[in-house]
């Protein structure tokens, strides 16, 4: 074989390989937004819990998202997602996930999966689309919104699944465990602003303005940072029935050392339990419910539990129906936080709920139109710190045109 034909063969093989192993998706999401709210959005340093606040009527960028996934070798996949949200974040476009996943072929009904890098913990039952977008609405529930804001597993996760099919069971059972770092600030946004409902994902090097600025030298929150040198962990269990119904439970503990305060962000000790179920019903109706309960603490204390401790709790119920190219979704979110220690220094207290209705129309494989209305109402005591009434009702109507290729 002459060298040129060898080179041709090699390049053809490479072309074949690359066509085979990589999927790249780019999506642009443009929004028309109408807001009825007395508050500025948290994205502008306000205490509003939606992505758009009082003065944000008009055309907005939802996101530009680029996602690449594929194989490096036969059993090792990669996933990389970058997003731009157009709201003055430090980097105009930044990574939200970047990881490697090793899936060795199962040689018995037990199969391993291991991920390393930066990725989402297996908590959300809504964020199933490319780029971790919700499949059912524009904005995620309060629980999964918080996951997108303050959480990323930057570390290692491994899961072991007992496959049911070879043994004639119609369900698989998995256990998952992870060790990670760079999640010490997790809790600060929930502490200051309470739960929110939106679709903005914090990028790995992203920042947000602080809702309540105490030190004017550091007006922004930097989310993914390692302060105390301790790794955190989570462990969970999942059952998947008939390949479609999903039950999940997960315990999360970032093992933050609350005595570590000499950093840009002090360390938050954040722990929670998360439960979720997604059930596929007849007529292509999907029902999802998730519940989360835990606490977050900051500041040195004699017992090491934290100077200020805030309990938090949220749940939601979602119903969605796919009808041909149409999808209709309704969701109710309940959101609570309560300061159980140190409230006289800073009283973080939220008592709110939210209704979300959404309609999505998938015109073809490229175009999707989405309309969503949210009404989030309740109180947030922290607003008193900056002279605002605690109670507020925020209403948002947004229309999104999404083009992906």
């Amino acid at each position: 074989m002459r060298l040129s034909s060898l080179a041709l063969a090699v390049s053809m093989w490479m072309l074949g390989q690359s066509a085979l192993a990589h999927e790249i998706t780019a999506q642009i999401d443009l929004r028309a937004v109408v807001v009825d709210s007395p508050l500025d959005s948290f994205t502008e340093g306000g205490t509003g819990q939606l992505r758009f606040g009082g003065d944000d009527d008009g055309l907005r960028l939802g996101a530009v998202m680029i996602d690449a996934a594929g194989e490096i070798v036969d059993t090792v996949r990669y996933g990389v997602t970058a997003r731009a949200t157009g709201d003055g974040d430090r980097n105009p476009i930044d990574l939200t996930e970047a990881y490697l996943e090793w899936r060795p072929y199962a040689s018995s009904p037990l199969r391993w999966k291991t991920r390393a890098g930066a990725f989402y913990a297996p908590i959300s039952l809504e964020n199933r689309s490319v780029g971790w977008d919700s499949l059912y609405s524009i904005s995620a529930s309060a629980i999964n919104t918080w996951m997108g804001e303050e959480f990323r597993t930057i570390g290692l996760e491994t899961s072991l699944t007992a496959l049911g099919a070879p043994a004639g069971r119609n369900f698989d059972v998995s256990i998952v465990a992870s060790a990670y770092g760079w999640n010490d600030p997790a809790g600060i946004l929930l502490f200051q602003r309470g739960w929110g409902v939106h679709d903005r994902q914090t990028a790995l090097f992203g920042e947000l303005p602080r809702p309540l600025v105490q030190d004017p030298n550091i007006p922004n929150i930097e989310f993914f940072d390692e302060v105390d040198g301790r790794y955190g962990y989570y462990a969970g269990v999942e059952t998947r029935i008939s390949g479609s119904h999903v039950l999940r439970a997960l315990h999360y503990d970032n093992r933050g050392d609350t005595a570590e305060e000499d950093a840009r962000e002090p360390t938050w000790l954040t722990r929670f339990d998360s439960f979720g179920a997604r059930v596929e019903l007849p007529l292509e109706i999907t029902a999802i419910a998730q519940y989360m309960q835990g606490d977050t603490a900051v500041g040195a204390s004699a017992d090491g539990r934290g100077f200020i401790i805030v309990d938090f709790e949220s749940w939601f119920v979602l119903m969605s129906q796919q009808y041909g190219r149409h999808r209709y979704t309704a969701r109710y979110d309940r959101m609570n936080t309560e300061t159980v220690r140190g409230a006289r220094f800073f009283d973080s207290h939220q008592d709110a709920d939210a209704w979300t209705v959404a309609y999505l129309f998938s015109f073809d494989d490229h175009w999707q139109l989405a309309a969503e209305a949210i009404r989030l109402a309740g109180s947030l005591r922290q607003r008193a710190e900056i002279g605002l009434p605690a109670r507020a009702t925020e209403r948002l109507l947004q229309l999104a045109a999404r083009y992906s290729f």
Partner: protein
Amino acid sequence: MAEMDQIDRQFSPYVLAIHTGTPVLFANNDSVAHQVYSFSPPKRFELALYHGRPREPVVFDRPGIVTVGCNIHDNMVGYLYVTDAPWFGTTGDDGVWTGRDLPAGEYELQVWTPLLPPHEWLHTQSIALGDQATRASFKLKRALRPEPVPIKDKRVRDY
């Protein structure tokens, strides 16, 4: 040669009945790549990631039940029923299978389905065939489970 396709991230058909020694082509009709494998004792194999038609079919040279999966899409599951029997097939949506041109004689009739708990997978009865058409029926103790559903929405990525 028989074919088991992959359509909308699911195997089609869900159950493929073949005679021992039959080569099967696992054709991928999806825009995403699949990685088909099995660790069932009658046939262990792995097809490295591919689009479209794989280079080689897989020959099933021992009778038995072979469960196939996709290493990337955990929801995908399919079965090959590999048999030495001279007459076999899969039932249609109406639950009926028709065998033609069978010589008269004594037969053993077996049905198998993975849509029941495993101890109820296999049902057997004896049947005598004469010159006339004969019907045999199996009454199942419980309703079959639903087959695994394909994932039609290309946006879904949580595998």
